[in-house]
């Protein structure tokens, strides 16, 4: 490495002062050029020779990469409520309550049978660390990360996202159906038991 040579002569100082002014002047002159919002794969993404580097954010934004890890989204129709995502989450920000269905609800888009309702499927985005583990374990790929990163809220309660498609009444109804079915099953079982005793 070359040793930095300090020069203190009058003309050296003047020269360095002038070169300083030239530097700022060059930036001032190039201020007519602007950075353009380019995608990360664009050749010019890291190549910004001169001009203003900031964007007027809400109006312009650099597109986020496809594999970026931003806000979660759950396609509840495809969710089989297996609870894997809640278990793997390192910060426990997914809350799932499940209710067994009395009959088969349907199939997800990849053909898996759905047997559980999810009266509660909440993800607390304020706690989430966007590690993406939940999306990798999800067997039906219904939990995904979207390119949305600007979702600040005034009230922190709004950071809890509710993904369930059941209203509380429907959830209640499903619970009752299940309870009734279980009662019926218990009754049938008891009846069968009683019948066996009789023999």
């Amino acid at each position: 490495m070359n040793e930095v040579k300090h020069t203190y002569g009058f003309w050296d100082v003047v020269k360095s002062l002038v070169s300083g002014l030239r530097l700022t002047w060059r930036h001032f002159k190039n201020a007519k050029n602007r950075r353009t919002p380019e995608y990360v794969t664009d050749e010019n993404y890291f190549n910004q020779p001169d001009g203003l580097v900031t964007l007027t954010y809400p109006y312009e934004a650099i597109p986020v990469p496809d594999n970026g890890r931003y806000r979660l989204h759950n396609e509840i129709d495809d969710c089989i409520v297996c609870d894997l995502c809640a278990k793997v989450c390192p910060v426990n920000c997914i809350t799932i309550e499940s209710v067994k269905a009395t009959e088969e609800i349907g199939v997800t888009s990849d053909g898996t049978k759905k047997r559980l309702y999810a009266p509660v499927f909440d993800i607390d985005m304020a706690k989430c660390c966007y590690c993406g583990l939940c999306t990798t374990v999800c067997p039906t790929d219904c939990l995904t990360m979207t390119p949305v990163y600007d979702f600040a809220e005034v009230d922190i309660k709004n950071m809890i996202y509710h993904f369930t498609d059941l209203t509380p009444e429907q959830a209640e109804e499903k619970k009752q159906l299940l309870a009734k079915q279980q009662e019926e099953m218990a009754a049938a079982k008891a009846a069968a038991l009683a019948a066996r005793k009789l023999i």
Partner: protein
Amino acid sequence: MLAFVLTLVLLLLIVIVLAYAERKVAAFMQDRLGPTEAGPYGSLQSVLDVLKLLQKEDIVPAAADKSLFKLAPILIFAAVFAGFAVIPFTPDLVPAGIGIGVFYLLAIISLDVVGLLMAGWGSNNKYAMLGAMRSVAQIVSYEIPAGLAILSVVMVCQSLDFQEISYQQGVLMQIFPGLEYEANWLFGIEALGLETTNIGGITTWNIFRAPILLVAFVIYFIASLAESNRAPFDIPEAESELVAGFHVEYSGFRFAILFLAEYSMMVLVSLVAVILFLGSWNTPLPNIGPLQLANWTTGTIGELSSILWGGFWLLSKTFVLLFLQLQIRWTYPRLRVDQLMHLCWKVLTPIALGIVLLAGIWRLLMI
């Protein structure tokens, strides 16, 4: 009274433009966009800033020395604003055309220091006090090289009247009462035998009439940066160490006044530099043979044309200097206190003393 109102309005306009320019220039030099939201390209930003400041609560700290605290902004602004009274804006428009304008200006500007000290002391805040002490030390010191640089102009021009100094630097010289038989020579040296009285333009500016004044101009410019507390001499404010210096406790209207005074000071020192060194309201274009550029861009005295041309040249030259001040602010790092005093007392003051001597000798060559 009319002059007062006109000057105040003009000053407010310039300051608002300057505050906007400061932000935009800073942004552009740092590869940012600067204000973009308020008005086209954010041009209403500084107007809105002023409106915001006016709405704010006027807080007087409980432990402050109330009377000093309240009086200081008014005194500071009054001192700076009073300086504008003697500035000739056009060939026949001076708010107060007194014969000892230069002397008056130097004297009245010094009052500023008292106001700063009052603000710093009255705030009863250590940062404000430190800022005020630094500010006063700096302004008092730098008044000496600045004063000496101005003195050399006064020696060359043999006048303390800003308007007379202005007339001397252009084609209109012989119109001024008392200067009828004066003549300008190239570089002020009659022996060269090139008369520039009717050539005018840049050749009759003070930095050309007596090239030694070019050095004086540089000294004055550096000292004026220090006097208006601009970077690289902004240790009185030094955002990063003293929060905001002497005006840290001020808010609302009083802060707006301090802010206004600071920018007015920038404008004032630039105006004085233009008037004393850069040909005042005179055009930079010389008459070359049949191309009477100087006459065309000067207008006729007493008519609107001379007012418009005069104002135009004066303001455009001032804005060039103001731009330079802004650029310097965003280019150079802040000086340390000892470096600041070293520069003032050991570099600028001796050179300025030498310039005064040389200016006197130059004056002898001019007659």
